[in-house]
């Protein structure tokens, strides 16, 4: 018997992963199933790590958000059970929280890090872009997102969340992905003009 070939995911776990990876209407349901399934981690964090209920919730929801992203972009390989994998992310988040508390680091830099997106850019250009990004006024940008209009905001948020133009067309009832792409870029341009007006 080869122990290494044994499937590590249960049918239920596989279903959750498949629905999140689909990136369409099923994704939201999958995300909620995933959150509900291991929500007892919050209580465990309160008892085991002596964190507040609120910190426990933050740790767990950040864990789920990061897991969703990895499942949606295909980087979760299913080499361990979903629970084991989630627990390792959860534990790492707890270590981050401790570090943040001891160094008193502001969380905004963590949330708004663009380092992952810059990975594909060559080094010289990366430095230039990173310097410009560092000058971004995040508060104003956030404020302008509201002014861009609800439809644009929804569409841009889905795009930033990893949905393809085709998925967005299905979710927002647009005729084709090309129409979504044109509208999305127009919305982005609108946001840029609003931001630069400041």
């Amino acid at each position: 018997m080869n122990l290494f070939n044994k499937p590590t995911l249960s049918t239920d776990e596989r279903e959750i992963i498949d629905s999140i990876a689909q990136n369409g209407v099923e994704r939201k349901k999958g995300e909620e199933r995933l959150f509900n399934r291991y929500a007892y981690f919050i209580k465990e964090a309160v008892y085991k790590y002596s964190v507040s209920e609120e910190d426990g919730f933050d740790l767990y929801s950040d864990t789920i958000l990061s897991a969703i992203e990895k499942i949606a972009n295909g980087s979760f390989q299913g080499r361990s059970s979903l629970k084991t994998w989630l627990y390792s992310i959860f534990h790492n988040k707890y270590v981050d929280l401790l570090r943040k508390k001891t160094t008193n680091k502001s969380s905004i830099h963590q949330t708004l890090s663009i380092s992952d997106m810059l990975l594909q850019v060559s080094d010289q250009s990366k430095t230039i872009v990173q310097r410009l990004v560092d000058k971004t006024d995040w508060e104003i940008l956030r404020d302008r997102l509201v002014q861009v209009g609800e439809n644009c905001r929804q569409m841009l948020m889905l795009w930033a969340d990893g949905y393809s133009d085709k998925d967005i067309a299905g979710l927002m009832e647009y005729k084709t992905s090309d129409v979504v792409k044109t509208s999305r870029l127009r919305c982005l341009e609108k946001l840029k003009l609003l931001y630069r007006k400041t």
Partner: protein
Amino acid sequence: MEENLEYIDAYFQRMLKPEEIRRFERRIAEDPAFAEEVAFYLSAKQSLKAEANQEKKERFRQLLAQQAPVINMDQNRTGKKAWLYRVAAAAAVIVVGFFAWSIFFSKSASPQQMADTYINKDLKTLGVKMSAELDSIQNGLRLYNNGQYDSSLVIFETISQREPGDYLPKYYAGIVYLQLGNYEKALQYFRQFENDTLYSNPSLFYQALTLLKRNLPGDKQKARELLQRVVDNDLGKKETAQEWLKQW
């Protein structure tokens, strides 16, 4: 200006060809207004992502409020779990004992075990040059050594796309895929430099290693043939291949 955003969008969605990628990156360095556009695109996307996550967190909060009794029920189970942990610990001792016995008393390691040992020992960390020089390959290796396989993969795959004639990014991308258990992609990358003229081409050895890990019907035999070719043709990792063939 909307065309610029479309161009930037195409770059980040990896839709540009290698020559276009180089031109895009050159333009960032040479055209400050364009660089500003790229920075805006990234800042906007990140800000939107943070908003999307915030909305999801609110949704999660509502879900949690709905299922509070379920969580308490789970918590009540923790007391009952205590003795289960003890039983599990005892079982773990027996399993560890069994494996230790297998290691000490079994005749020799199977090809799969040799592959596992090689991956766990020799590929756990990869050599990084000690230099302050900005080099993406070195950055990729640092991420790999930190266990950030997904991030290192983005670097190796992007360089491989940008520099199709260079075997190194393909070699490293193959190793990352091997670590991630995606054997098809690992093989794809290792095969890409099989015919490159290198002083000591390790392609066949790594293909054999991947086949041993994949372990589909026929893989073991194919791996053995590849290792034999490594020895016969004096290719990269010849000594290890010889060692493995002796123990086969």
